[in-house]
């Protein structure tokens, strides 16, 4: 009886996995944060007579690792979500097929980090320090204007950052300090930051919702490493309609780090034509205009109009820090290890 049940399960499983489907299916592997409007996807499906399936596979690192581990028998036709901190690893692993999408022509060169067009930029986000406006106003405390300012005594115990070993914005902020102080100087900066009471937590959720004073968690720190778009999200997802965001980002030159997210066609896809269409679709205006409020990232396509909330509450930093993906790939493990030694031990 039990054996029978078990066998039935097995058969059902295998059938469920291999069942024939009606229209062609396009599978997109992404990280957990991917989001899109139902309407937008439906339009694409109707226009191309295709069913789009998404597989979410954990955070950026986990999703990429899974894509790499299955590169000989890919789970999907496309992989979206690798960012510039992981780009070299993805390219070295050779998971993508190049595709010189015509849509790339409209996109500024600063985003196109892979000259062979294996990974195509879709969106970007600036990892910036968010601050609690009310806190600073109530104390007449000036807003810090540089990374150096954060080591001043008046900002003692006021900043919470994420562990770069376990968090993507944490790594981005570490890279911002590397870009600003250089590979030789960043550790010294972190040591002073540590003396000034910087709080380190493992993930963005904890930092934002537990430690940050302006979030619903009402934590003790009025500054948190988050995204330049977070103040806009605070308004969109406010408990009661707000006319002003309770938070804002420090967008002074060199204080933010720009993350760029890429999509690519996975090697070995059986749906090359449809996959190309989907890449074009992601770079196109419809998706690019839909994406900001879904993922709170900014479109790389300059033709896309930014939603009102972004314009009003999420001004983009003018000179965000960047580092070349190759430099990041070569040094990230060592930087993280050294950082861990300097800040956590």
């Amino acid at each position: 009886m039990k054996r029978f049940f078990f066998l039935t399960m097995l058969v059902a499983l295998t059938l469920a996995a291999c069942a024939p489907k009606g229209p062609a299916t396009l599978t997109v592997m992404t990280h957990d944060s991917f989001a899109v409007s139902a309407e937008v996807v439906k339009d694409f499906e109707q226009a191309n007579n295709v069913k789009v399936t998404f597989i979410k596979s954990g955070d950026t690192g986990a999703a990429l690792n899974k894509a790499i581990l299955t590169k000989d028998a890919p789970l999907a036709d496309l992989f979206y979500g690798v960012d510039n901190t992981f780009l070299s690893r993805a390219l070295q692993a050779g998971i993508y097929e190049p595709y010189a999408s015509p849509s790339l022509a409209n996109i500024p060169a600063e985003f196109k980090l892979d000259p062979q067009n294996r990974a195509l930029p879709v969106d970007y986000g600036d990892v910036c320090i968010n601050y609690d406006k009310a806190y600073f106003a109530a104390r007449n405390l000036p807003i810090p204007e540089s990374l150096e300012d954060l080591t001043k005594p008046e900002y003692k115990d006021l900043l919470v950052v994420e562990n770069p070993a376990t968090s993507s914005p944490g790594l981005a902020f570490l890279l911002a300090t590397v870009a600003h102080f250089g590979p030789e100087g960043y550790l010294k900066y972190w040591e002073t930051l540590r003396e000034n009471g910087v709080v380190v937590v493992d993930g963005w959720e904890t930092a934002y919702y537990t430690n940050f004073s302006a979030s619903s968690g009402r934590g003790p720190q009025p500054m948190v490493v988050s995204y330049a778009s977070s103040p806009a999200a605070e308004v969109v997802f406010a408990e009661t309609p707000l006319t002003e965001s309770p938070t804002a980002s420090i967008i002074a030159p060199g204080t933010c780090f720009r993350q760029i997210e890429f999509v690519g066609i996975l090697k070995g896809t059986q749906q090359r034509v449809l996959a190309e269409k989907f890449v074009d679709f992601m770079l196109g205006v419809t998706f690019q205009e839909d994406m900001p409020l879904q993922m709170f990232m900014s479109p790389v396509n300059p033709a896309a109009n930014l939603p009102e909330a972004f314009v009003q509450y999420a001004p983009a930093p003018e000179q965000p820090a960047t580092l070349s993906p190759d430099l990041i790939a070569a040094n990230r493990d060592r930087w993280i290890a050294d950082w861990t030694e300097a800040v956590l031990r």
Partner: protein
Amino acid sequence: MRQRDNESASQRVGKSTQGGFAESLIRRIAPWLGVSLFLGLFFFCPLARILWLGLNPASLLTIAPDSLLIIRHSLLFTFYQACLSTLLTLLVGLPAAYLFARFDFRGKPLLRLLTAIPFMLPTVVAAAGFNALLGPRGWVNLGLMQLFGLESAPITFVHTLWAILFAHVFYNTTILIRVVGNALAHLDPRLEQAARILGADARRAFWQVTLPLLRPSILAASLLVFLFDFTSFGVILLLGGPRFATLEVEIYKQAIQIFNLPLAALLTFIQLLFTLAFSIVYGRIVTGVAVTTTPHTAQSNLRRARAWREKLFVGGMASLLLALFLLPMASLPLRSVARLEAARGERTAVGYDLTSNYYTELFVNRLDSLFYVPPFKALTNSLLYATMTVVLSLALGFPVASALARPGRLERFLDPFLMLPLGASAVTLGLGFIVAFNQPPLALIRSPLLVPIAHTLIALPFVIRSLQPALASIPDRLRQAATSLGASPLRTWFTVDWPIVSRATLAAAIFAFTVSLGEFGATALVSRPEYPTLPIAIYRFLSQPGGLNYGQAMDMATILMVVCGAGILLIERFRLPGAGEF
């Protein structure tokens, strides 16, 4: 007359020994078929695939020598915190088990339910609860600051070792209450009374009779608790903070963030070896003390507290449990209806105000997101997965637990391997699943059925460990009595075994149910957005800023707790015929 009886009996014996060898071999192996196939396919195969990727000779050489330091450091800390956590859990859990098994008091079912809920609480939610209570801006600290006019929080809890230990006690006490409490409830009360009459005071009777008789179940429960603490992940990350790293956390960092698969595989292997070693040692200890006693009705052991010392114990223990379990959890439903006006920004005086906005918002797909999770759908998915997990793990666990209850050499050998799924790194196993199941004939990776399968992997050790002591406690003569009265094997099972193990089966079912409801890792492993579960929904809300998101996450957490509580109540009420008699 008698003569003839003897003859026919000896004929029967002769017949069964002749053709019986193959038959008895099959009978010994049969209970293991399901589990071996299941574990082989869904545990050992993916694990072996991924470990081989990391641990083949070529890639082993890439492990840097200074990695040994990482291994040593994380191993030592893992041991240290797991030992402390287990001890603390025993310290709270044993008196709690005693309280539930021996005393009848008002609100007992509710308190019992309360202690079971944390087990399925996703770590993010539990961490939010602890923060609301003991965090730097938690009620306790805010209260103390207001009371004494302090500038900063007097209690540092989050990101200390204490937070880790406290959370582990919070999560795992229910294991002791279920496993040890069940054994205690069915212990023959006359043994303790015999000791009392022979001159033992209550204390000595407990230490010299009750405790030794409970040893197998205490050891079983301790092993489960220890393994849970040993492989702790979310609690370390969220409450321990970046300064603490267990093996599992280190595996995650190495495998996912640094992509050092060889080192991750090595760490996984070490963790597995230790799990196996603990299980073997446990098996050795337990076989030495296995005792069958005539099981007793749980009711006959129950009494109301009479003496002032008993009253003090019941009152004190119940209050302690209430504080330990209710306070951190109460903050969640409260938060789910309390609006914390972030815009006002006054930092010490927290302005609460009640709202049902979050709940109504749950049903609104504000941004027309493709991945919007309708709460009802998440709920039904969660329940469906949980039901499948209960059925599957009981179906697989029962034959094995029955075989283990009368262990032969085969059973003693295989027993420790059953515990391995608890000790395997979820991160590594997740990668193993991806490698093993992405191609036909087992292209399961995209099948939603993989979720209950993964949940069953985790629940199975609990199910087996809950059932085995109960099955082992049934004296053979009871079965023989039933058989000799003309009952068929099936009938014997239903009239003898079932009434005795029905309570243990309930405990096992509840374990499986809660494990499945709260599990996040395996669900996220291959999450098909079409099949969201409640924990997935919670994580989705918590991954974006905004008061509504936070409020909705708390809503979902509250729904999860209510569903879990209702599920447990339902399972406890659900009695098959005859189950109530024991």
